[in-house]
């Protein structure tokens, strides 16, 4: 890979005695959509937490844009350009949709500004509204986040992650708990976003990402099982074995 945006080398993560990640090495190509797949409990979210800074790995190294960023305090990741949407909706429930996105966007410039009115930063409000419109929530911007439907909150998650103008956008199961209709819309949105951005997407339903993702990474029991193109993964015997028994997930899902 010529120009990786993020490189994870030999990542290990243990919780007490439990090993959630073991020796995982992956590079993410700039400008591409990569999918991280694997059955439930494979360690996908843990891996995301490590590369988004929420967890410091117990072993290994992460570099971003060629710089070693292992152990950087979590709040600096967003400012460096790594933003994540959460698998379990994680927004500011009592704030409006607009304020959720506005405050996320404000983080880029925030320098303990105590005496200006937040509304005087009109550009931030415009940006929040534009992002809400992009994810289909334009009409809901004055509603509190807790008043939004589940699917809408998932979209809000993405707008908040986008507000940081990330160089690398991490989406952790954005379709979790969505109806088939909502899932389709979400995948369309992701495809649109992927045209101009570097995205890494976690998904345990392999079918959804086959064809969409240019590169796939398969985790299993905390280890890297395989990586490659859709075709490589589809024809990989080990992957087939892992996903067998998970009846619903057709490995050969149409691209």
């Amino acid at each position, binding site marked *: 890979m010529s120009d990786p945006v993020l490189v994870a080398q030999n990542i290990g993560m243990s919780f007490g005695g439990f090993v959630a990640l073991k020796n995982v090495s992956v590079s993410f190509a700039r400008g591409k959509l990569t999918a991280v797949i694997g059955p439930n409990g494979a360690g996908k979210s843990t891996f995301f937490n490590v590369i988004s800074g929420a967890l410091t790995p117990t072993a290994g190294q992460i570099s971003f844009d060629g710089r070693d960023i292992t152990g950087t305090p979590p*709040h600096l990741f967003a400012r460096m350009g790594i*933003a994540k949407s959460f698998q379990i909706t994680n927004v500011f429930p009592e704030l409006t949709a607009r304020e959720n996105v506005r405050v996320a966007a*404000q*983080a*880029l410039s925030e320098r303990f500004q*105590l005496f*200006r009115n937040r509304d005087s930063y009109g550009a931030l409000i415009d940006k929040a509204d534009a992002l809400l419109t992009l994810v289909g929530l334009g009409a809901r911007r004055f509603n509190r986040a807790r008043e939004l439907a589940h699917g809408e909150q998932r979209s809000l998650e993405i707008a*908040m992650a986008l507000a940081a103008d990330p160089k690398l956008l991490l989406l952790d199961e954005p379709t979790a708990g969505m109806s088939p209709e909502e899932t389709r819309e979400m995948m369309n949105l992701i495809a649109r976003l992927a045209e101009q951005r570097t995205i890494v997407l976690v998904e345990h339903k392999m079918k959804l990402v086959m064809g969409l993702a240019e590169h796939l990474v398969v985790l299993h029991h905390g280890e890297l099982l395989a990586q490659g193109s859709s075709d490589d993964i589809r024809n990989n015997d080990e992957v087939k074995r892992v996903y067998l028994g998970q009846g619903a997930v057709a490995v050969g899902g149409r691209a």
Partner: protein
Amino acid sequence: MTSIDLTAPRDQPHWLDVASRYRVALTLAFLVIFPWITPYEALAVNILVLGLYALGFNLVFGYTGLLSFGHAAFLGTGAYGCGIAIVSYKIGWFGAILIGTASATLLGVVMGFLAIRTRGIYFAMVTLALSMCVYYAFYQMQSLTGGENGLRGVNLQTISVLGVSLPFINPTVKYYVILAFVAVAIWLFSRILASPFGAVLEAIRENEERARACGYDVARTKLVAFIISGAFCGLAGALNAIHLSIVPIETLHYTTSGQVVMMSLLGGMGTFFGPFVGAAAFLLIEDVLAMLTSHWQLFVGIIFIVFVLFFPRGIWGSLLQWAERK
């Protein structure tokens, strides 16, 4: 009233949104006429000063979501700082108020630095423990603080304001002089809440993990909020010292920390005007019940429990919610 200005879409702004925009002017207008509707002026001054104490506390409790059980330390340090400056160092009243406020702010830096990384019940415990250390420190410095007798002789007969001498003994003069300080504090407080910094506080209260993921330094933001809160409470303490002419050692007692929690819950945490409503309610309940029964503390406790269980938004918060639905 800040909880209102971010709500559902409306063709015309709700009158509460408009009211919220003018919250400083409205609060001040009310406080200007307030002494004329209270039974006696000393009560009005008490409510004003304790309302400011609750306002400062509300910054960490209501707006940032941190339950401190040590805010008596700020009220007390502000009061002693101001009182000692006047009694022992013969410093002018205005300078003494600034010294009291600055001392509490400095204490906020120290206490905040030690406490801010703990959360929930641990934060409450650490702040409580630190405030008890402050209590004993002042208790021990007898020659300066008067120890258990409290600091006496913070008497201001007349004060000079821009060369004009005013009879501070006169309750009306006293009320409006103190209101001048409270007014500036209220205006500053409103500015801070409306600022980007205020937005971060709300975000932290709503969801600390997400605020961090957005890129905010949560610990540092909380520390700054804690220090600012200490400054406001210290100013309240300094004003209380010149109001009462003495600083009772009880000012630093942990029950004073408990009082401000009660006032906040009674008034409505995270509302702009709630602290003043809470202070008024608390003092009136205390006054009335103490007249009726010697077991008044029991009844205060019961009223408090009723509020926590059935009106968690407090008096002002519940009124706002009711008006918002209209």
